[in-house]
Each structure stands twice: as C-alpha cells, then as structure tokens.
C-alpha cells in the first residue's frame, strides 16, 4: 500500500505528532511520502462556500490519485473533511462539475482514493510493535475521530479501537471516563475561558483515573490539553510509542 501523508495545518503546532507518525510508519515498512497538499478547509470554508471546500479537497485527492496512493492523515478534522469530500466525489456528476474547476489548475480527480487516520493504518501492524514501558495510559479520542458516526472509525458511543491498539503494543490502559469528551479546542478563539474549562476537566479526569499520561490522536486536542496542563503528561500516541520502543 502506498500512502500520501497529510499532516494538516495544526501539525505545525504539534510537529512531534507529524514527525513521530512518519517515523513509526516508516519503521513499519509502510510506503509513505509527503506531498504538496492544501488546507482541507474545515467546516469554516465549507460554510463559507461549499463548492470551494469541495474543490480544495478534490485537489488533495487528485494529488494522491496521481501518485497511485491513498491518503493517511494524523488530524481527525482533516480526516473528516477529506472523507466527506471523497464520498461526495464518488458521484459522477459531482465529480464532473468539480473537475471543471480543477481543470483551471491542470488537475483532475477520477475517484476511488481512500482516506485513513493514522491509527487505522498502524493498528494493522500492532503485532510488530512492542513497547518497553510501565506507563499507565489514558487513551483520549476527542470528537471528530468518532463523530459523526457515519464518518467515525469506531462506535461513537462505546469506542475501543484506540485502547485495544495501545494494549496490544504493550501499554497499561486506565479506565478513562472522559475519553470521548470534547476538549473545546474549537472554542479557542471564540470563548477561551470555556475552552480552558473543557480541556481542564479532561485532564482532571485523567488524573483521577490514575493515569501517568494521556495519549492523544488529534493535533488540536494535543495543543489544547497542553495549554491547560495540570502536571500530567500529554503526548500524541505515535510519540508515546516511538519514545518507548
């Protein structure tokens, strides 16, 4: 399998997540490469102009297609936007319209590129990863990797994919009640105090659960939790693995 790596804009603030995700995938022998991707637009561009949002995502999908690759991203928001667009672009008439726009930048999308979150990829290699660590980990999903349910990678109400994977590679997991609560990171600009109280409640819950650290899988969650840190370490899950191999 050939994979185009889509770090997403938030990866700049969580560079260690992007770097460790690449390291881990390369270590596992996965054929992954970087490319000239644009911003997924997020719901902000989608609401501003849905056609632009779709065309921006189609451009990204067309780049992967040109390389005969699927896309792997570390960011659940990018995952959601790319996947939603990929589903819409399976419709031939939608694709025809969008290709009319892509033609202006010399590109074309034929369809069929799959979009994955990095967890979905590396979990298939769980048997080949073995960590040397006694850390008790709170696995934190956040929102957009699970919801909306038709896009999410596991059961939105009772997910286990993340804990199952971390257990398999050798970590001890704690029962973490706040695992799929929202960190409030999207309120960072509109209501900073509200955002901080949400993020803080997640870390407080992690402390109560007896965890030594929190594993994240979203760059924005990582950024948000670090801002309100309460002494408990917060790490992207790929960094946690790479550091303990």
């Amino acid at each position, binding site marked *: 399998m050939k994979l185009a790596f889509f770090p997403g*804009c*938030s990866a*700049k*603030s*969580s*560079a260690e997540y992007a770097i460790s995700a690449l390291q881990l995938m390369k270590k596992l022998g996965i054929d992954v490469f970087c490319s*000239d*991707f*644009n*911003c997924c*637009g*997020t*719901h*902000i*561009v*989608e*609401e*501003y*102009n849905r*056609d*632009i949002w779709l*065309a*921006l995502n189609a*451009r990204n999908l067309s780049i992967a297609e040109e390389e005969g690759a699927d896309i792997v991203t570390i960011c659940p928001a990018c995952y959601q936007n790319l996947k939603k667009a990929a589903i819409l672009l399976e419709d031939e008439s939608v694709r025809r319209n969008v290709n009319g*726009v*892509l033609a*202006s*930048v010399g*590109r074309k999308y034929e369809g069929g590129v799959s979009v994955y979150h990095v967890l979905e990829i590396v979990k298939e290699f769980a048997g080949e990863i073995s960590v040397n660590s006694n850390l008790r980990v709170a696995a934190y999903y956040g*929102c*957009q990797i699970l*919801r*909306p*349910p038709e896009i999410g990678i596991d059961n*939105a*109400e009772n997910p286990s994919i993340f804990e199952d994977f971390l257990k398999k590679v050798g970590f001890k997991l704690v029962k973490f009640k706040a695992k799929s*609560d*929202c960190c*409030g990171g*999207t*309120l*960072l*600009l*509109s*209501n*900073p*105090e*509200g*955002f*901080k*109280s*949400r993020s803080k409640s997640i870390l407080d819950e992690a402390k109560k659960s007896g965890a030594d650290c929190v594993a994240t899988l979203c760059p924005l969650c990582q*950024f948000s939790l*670090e*801002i*309100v840190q309460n002494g408990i370490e917060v790490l992207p899950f790929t960094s946690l693995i790479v550091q303990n191999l």
Partner: protein
Amino acid sequence: MKCYQCGTCTADCTSANVNDGFNPRRMMLEYLEEGKLSELCWLCASCFKCYRCPKNVKPYEVMAEMRAEYIKMGKVPAYVKAFVETVKDYGELDETAFFIKLAKAGMIMDVSVILSTVRKRGVKAFALPKKSGCAKEVSKIFAVIERSFKDSLRDESRDEEGVKRPLVSGVPA
C-alpha cells in the same frame, strides 16, 4: 420537524456547558419554525455530540446552516474571515499570517495560547508568514468558483483586474 423536544442534544452539548444561553434544542426550534437566527451558532464546538438524537435530527447541521446564512449576509466573526482569507492567500492555515490578520481585526489571542505556542515552537513561533507551494493553485480555485457562481459570496466591488477586496464585510461588533 422530527424533533420532539427531548433535549438530549442540549443535555450533552459541549458548548451549552460553557456558554450561557447556548441551547441547541431551543435554537433549532426557533430557527426551523420561525426562521429566527441566533448569533450563538458561532459558539457551537463542532463536537457532534448532538448526533445522539433519538429522532436522528442533526442539530450540528442546523447550526452550520445558520452560520452559512450569516455568511451570506456578510455578518461574519473576524476569525472566520481571517481563516478563509489565510487559506485563500497561503494555501494552508499559516499561523503567523492568521494571527496577523486576527490582530489587524482587533482580535488578540488569549495569553495562555500565545505562551503555549511559543513554548512549543520556540523561535519558529515568530516565523514570517510563508505561502505554501500550492498557494497559487488554491487562490485560483477560489477565484474561479467565486467568479462563476453569482449567488456565492463574490465581492461585487472587485474590479476588472481582480484587485483584492475583503472577501466578506460587515463583521459584527
């Protein structure tokens, strides 16, 4: 309307938890039955917890529709405008460019956010804005679509040479 007013969406809402008056059940009812918009829609956290709805109503989508309505009217919070313009000009959300646009609009980031960014990124936190390699293609995509859809948000004041004007105007106080 399918909604039977059980309030599940509101009981579990991230934003209702931290924003006074944010009540998705009531906001949806007033919008769908009376067409009443609420500026609180900008405070939705996009966490999709409201998709727990037993009647399979999607409150998030109603919030998104309200936001799109405001955008059509040109009533857009400064950060939304800055976000769209940054992506349009830089191809990605270049953080420095975004923060400068925010500051120009009078929006200063929370101190703890700035400190955390500096702590993490070190000197890179002060990097100059830099266009991504795809910036030209992205700007072109914006331009082509904005020109071709009359009902989109095309700025009517844009002149023949395509001189740049603000994408959207009328930022609410």
